């Protein structure tokens, strides 16, 4: 018993010290709290990432590996695509990225390949399993949070800071904000006051996009009503009957699944199916919609355009 309380006391002491040590750089996750570098200079970079790890680089990284498509796109949109030496297998935009070495996915990354690329930093999504493993091997990692719409601006700023180009990050954020607003205005004009009910099917199942998901946020921005309610979660697996009962005005679905909508029992009665108010997006368009990254305005515009056409 005494041994245990002593151990507990030691642990608390150690944790306390760590907390004190970390305190000066405390801040919101993935906020670029302390940029102690001159803009676009070759000065040291000290940042805290989404996992509360501190990144210390003597000079901006020249060899960058990214493990998420939206991060890859952000790096390229910041104009620093030349610094990429490797990406994950799902990154496919812009075209130059397709020729880079592919290091697997987020959950099954090719550790050996990453290490062999000798990156100065690996930028990946928050809470990836391989982060610990890479850090053990001495690879510098940087976590970013990339789930919601707000995360986009934050991650652009953070990635800009890591790359040592914070000014370009500010500019990119402004551009994104502007195009999103333009698309939103255009969409509202096209809809002219209507608020159609929508159903966005992410996958066969059917898995729907709820209001808490990124897609759900975008749909809400356009002034539509999601037939899926918030308490069902971001990507619930629905009872197909639910869609029949709520009879959405517009259905969003992938182009591959669109043809068999009619065959689902009861779905041929849906207004959206009968009146052809189905937005079927191909793979490339879907990529812009589901990735919270610099192309968000494109995805936004795609949804808006289709809505404008088909909404009742």
């Amino acid at each position, binding site marked *: 018993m005494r041994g245990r309380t002593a151990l507990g006391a030691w642990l608390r002491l150690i944790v306390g010290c760590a907390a004190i040590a970390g305190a000066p750089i405390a801040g919101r996750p993935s906020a670029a709290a302390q940029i102690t570098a001159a803009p676009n200079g070759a000065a040291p970079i000290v940042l805290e990432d989404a996992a509360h790890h501190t990144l210390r680089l003597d000079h901006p990284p020249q060899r960058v590996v990214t493990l998420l498509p939206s991060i890859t796109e952000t790096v390229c949109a910041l104009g620093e695509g030349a610094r990429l030496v490797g990406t994950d297998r799902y990154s496919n935009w812009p075209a130059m990225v397709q020729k880079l070495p592919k290091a697997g996915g987020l959950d099954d990354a090719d550790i050996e390949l990453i290490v062999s690329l000798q990156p100065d930093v690996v930028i990946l999504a928050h809470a990836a399993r391989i982060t610990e493993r890479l850090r053990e091997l001495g690879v510098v990692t940087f976590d970013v949070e990339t789930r919601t719409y707000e995360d986009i601006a934050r991650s652009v700023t953070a990635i800009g800071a890591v790359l040592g180009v914070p000014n370009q990050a500010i500019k990119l954020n402004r551009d994104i904000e502007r195009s999103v607003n333009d698309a939103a205005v255009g969409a509202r004009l096209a809809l002219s006051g209507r608020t159609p009910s929508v159903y966005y099917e992410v*996958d066969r199942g059917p*898995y729907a996009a709820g209001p808490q998901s990124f897609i759900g946020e975008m749909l809400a921005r356009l002034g539509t009503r999601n037939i899926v309610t918030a308490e069902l979660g971001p990507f619930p*697996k*629905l009872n197909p009957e*639910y869609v029949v009962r709520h009879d959405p005005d517009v259905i969003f679905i992938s182009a591959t699944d669109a043809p*068999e909508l009619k*065959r*689902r*029992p009861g779905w041929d009665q849906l207004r959206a199916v009968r009146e052809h108010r189905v937005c079927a997006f191909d793979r490339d368009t879907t990529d812009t919609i589901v990735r919270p990254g610099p192309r968000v305005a494109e995805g936004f515009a795609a949804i808006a355009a289709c809505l404008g056409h088909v909404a009742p």
Partner: protein
Amino acid sequence: MNPDAVAVPEAVQPAPDPGVSRFALWLAAGAVLTLVLTALSLLIGTSSLRTSIEWLRSPDAQANTVLWQIRLPRATGAWLAGALLGLGGAIAQGLFRNPLAEPYLLGSSAGAGLGVSLTLIAADTSLSGLAWGAEIGITGAAFLGACGGIGLTVLLSRGAMQTASLLLAGIVVGFLLSAVQSLLLLSSPDTWRAMQAFLLGSTGYLNWHSSGLLGAAFLVCMLPTVLLARGLTALTLGEETAQSLGLSIAFLRLSLLAILSLATASTVGQVGAIGFVGLVAPHLVRETRPVNQRQLLIAAPLCGGILLQTADLISRWVVRPAELPVGVVTSCLGGSYLVFLLWRRARRV
């Protein structure tokens, strides 16, 4: 033993099996349970009980759609799919003389999974693939894949000469095709969630067309099975004994294989790879009453149908209006039943 008892009067008959009428009662009880579950299926879904009852009393167009186009065919289809799985399980356990045998042993579910993933990937990557995929659909792809998997197994075991080699070949084919499927999925990760939905099984898309197909398959499978029942009974004594009785083992085995293939392939095509029903249904039957082979081949489908209907109801009700994958529910039910059996056996010892 009386040595003079050789000459016995011809009129002595062995006592008639008193279990026959009791078995008929058991079947009737099963039928009643099925009807009750079907009625519940009409009431349970995304609407509250009160709403459902109101709908039954004064239906509007949408209520009619939900009740008669969605819920009723779903309940019917679930029963038929479960019945086919139960039949498959009883056949598999009799054919392999192994109480752990189940209908997917011959590579049917792995083959179906491979067929579905090929179709999903083809549809995803090219327009012609999309057209072709839409043509046969996930259902057709799963059916063809299941048949392919079983065909590969029979080929590997060289025409099903030995039961043991058939079993081995089935396991090997299962692993092989699953591996190929995993490789394919890696290359096309967007299809992963759709594959997962298929693998976990789903009764959500059963319409009258699918119920009709399943019903036809059920009839085509049940009739020959009942005819082959006596042969299967003889087979339980051992292959050489059955052979000496005048049974053609090859004929029996191939016929049963064909029936098993049709039953599994049609089910997997419609509802995906739902596990445990085929394994557990024959055991549940034997738990409630001792049956001979012919009775088992009739009772196991009934039990399987009831099982899957129950699982479907649970999957629809627990997290409504979302739903659980029905394969998860059957695994939980089946797994807990097996745990219960083990616990009871440990207590007896």
